[in-house]
């Protein structure tokens, strides 16, 4: 995409199960699809195990030999590089003490989580990525509500990792999601206040904000100085019934297992009935000359190729982004 904003596309929806996105030719098809849609930069998402050869830093390097070889693999499909990588330290991973379950909300876990972040920081620096995008805290239903002290504990961990990332020349962006224990606008603002603006930014995901009850346009205008990364996608629903507090909300809420039984929350840009003011949000980014990556996602939405193509059409024809 040729634009004053920098556009990238997230590969997460192609990699929906550990063994379905492993063969290099399948990955090349996804990369070519993204490229044909006008995106020459991608966001990766963390995974675990030997199958995650496009997700887990150590496994990527084991498969490709070096950062440069991995970049050459992307370049075969005319994808220029990696904007960012998503990592959730709360998601157990084989490489992280053998699927240890740790949380940024637990001070006793802080040292281990800081250690776990190093492969991601090193990998991103090696491939020229700019942002480590992280889930700052686990799901709300798994712990009591956070108070200010609890938020400070979380902020402290990310400040330490932010320093590490900064020393390696990359940014750290906390990604708010609609299930997280940092849920309300006040809690999110509190987390930002508990982190160092010099080293810790915010990844604003338009759909996650909207589902969680936070207006992405208003929040961006108020906190533009802290927003260093964007995930752009739409939703047709807001969590008006506090479904995020249901036990197992990853399934009960996001997969329609209970509550209003909504099976699909995330949609492509331009979807009928979309709640996100995409044009207003992008206009706000332009007004503030946003310099970070705007990553378009099709996660949990459907056929990833179809959604990438629909998102590309929206960028070209509704947002006035030139493809070449």
């Amino acid at each position, binding site marked *: 995409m040729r634009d004053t904003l920098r556009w990238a596309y997230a590969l997460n929806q192609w990699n929906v199960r550990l063994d379905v996105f492993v063969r290099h*030719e399948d990955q090349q*098809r*996804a990369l*070519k*699809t993204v*490229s*044909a*849609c*006008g995106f020459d930069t991608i966001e990766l998402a963390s995974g675990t195990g030997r199958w995650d050869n496009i997700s887990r830093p150590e496994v990527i390097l084991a498969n490709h030999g070096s950062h440069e070889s991995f970049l050459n693999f992307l370049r075969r*499909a*005319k994808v220029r590089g990696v904007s960012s990588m998503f990592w959730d330290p709360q998601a157990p991973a084989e490489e992280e003490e053998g699927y240890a379950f740790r949380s940024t909300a637990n001070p006793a876990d802080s040292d281990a989580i800081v250690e776990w972040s190093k492969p991601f920081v090193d990998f991103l620096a090696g491939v020229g990525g700019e942002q480590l995008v992280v889930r700052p805290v686990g799901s709300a239903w798994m712990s009591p509500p956070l108070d200010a002290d609890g938020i400070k504990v979380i902020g402290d961990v990310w400040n330490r990792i932010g320093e590490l990332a900064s020393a390696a020349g990359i940014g750290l962006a906390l990604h708010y999601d609609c299930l997280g224990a940092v849920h309300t606008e006040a809690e999110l603002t509190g987390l930002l206040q508990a982190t160092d603006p010099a080293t810790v930014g915010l990844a604003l995901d338009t759909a996650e904000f909207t589902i969680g009850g936070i207006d992405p346009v208003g929040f961006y205008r108020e906190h533009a100085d802290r927003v260093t990364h964007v995930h752009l996608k739409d939703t047709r629903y807001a969590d008006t019934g506090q479904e995020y507090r249901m036990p197992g909300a990853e399934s009960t809420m996001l997969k329609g297992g209970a509550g209003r039984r909504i099976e699909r929350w995330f949609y492509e840009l331009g979807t*009928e009935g979309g709640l996100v003011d995409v044009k207003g949000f992008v206009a706000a980014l332009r007004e503030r000359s946003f310099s970070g990556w705007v990553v378009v996602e099709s996660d949990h939405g*459907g*056929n990833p*190729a*179809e959604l*990438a*193509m*629909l998102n*590309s*059409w*929206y960028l*070209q*024809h509704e947002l006035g982004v030139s*493809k070449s």
Partner: protein
Amino acid sequence: MSDDRAIKWSYMDHWRSNGPSGPVDQWHSHKTMSAFLKQIKATGFDAIDTFDFRIWQMYGDYGGPAKYQEMVRDHGLERIVNTFHAADYDVRNYAPHLPETHENILEDFRVTMGRWSEIELDNIIVMPATLYYDMEPITEDKLKYSAECWNKVGEITAGFGVKLTCHHEFFCGIQSEPDIETFYSYTDPRYVSLFVDTAQHCIAGLDPVALYDRHAHRVSGFHFKDTRNVATGDDHRHRPDSEIMAPTTGKWFYEMGTPQGLVDFEAMMTAVRDNGYRGWISVEHDKANKEGGDYSESTAVSRWYAKNVLEEIYR
């Protein structure tokens, strides 16, 4: 051509997607049509091709070809370039090698061209023979009768400003190299053109580049698609349709750039350039969804190939 590119890319109408009510094609609803057109445009296609039998949906759902074409244009595409006349061949009343059926065929085209006359088409594409099993043994007389039929049809379509062009499926009665050569020797270049389908000719055992080079002066378009298999034995003689029923191969067609593809697209594009062709190339990957394939992805991958490989040779 409205700009200075020598080649523009059109997408031939084949599509399946999964909707809330199950697998559908793009003609299922205005919503699915819009999603289809957006995807075609987003990846860089300039136009679409379609089938004659879609005209009923154009009239019923959109108000006719011109109105439907307005929707195509609203999505950023230029127009409908070609239509494929998928005739239901029948030796009782519709078979080009049987002169007694010719008047019925001619009347079909008089009516058909009238239906399309409200928009500008470049080509009406036909399979120039019945199914192989309905025409064999292939004789020179049958080829000559077929040529005479299409000469007359081409004169009708020319009257509407549209070229009649022949697309030789591997399972039709005119698919071997000698039969194709004999057929064209009897046709009038003013009224009958050749439409080169790269995969179909490969499957039939022909070199599509050599065929194109021999007939370049009368080639009016292309289907660029790939295959991994050549027909063997009696693959070309299965009812109702060898594309579906041939025993050796469950899936014949793949998008351009597929691994193990038999079509030499770089040689093909070089020949297109060297023969000075200017105009539309249609991309096709019919039945792409078979055996786990996906139309959206195949469309993006083939347009990627056109941009990053073929346009480096000629654009």
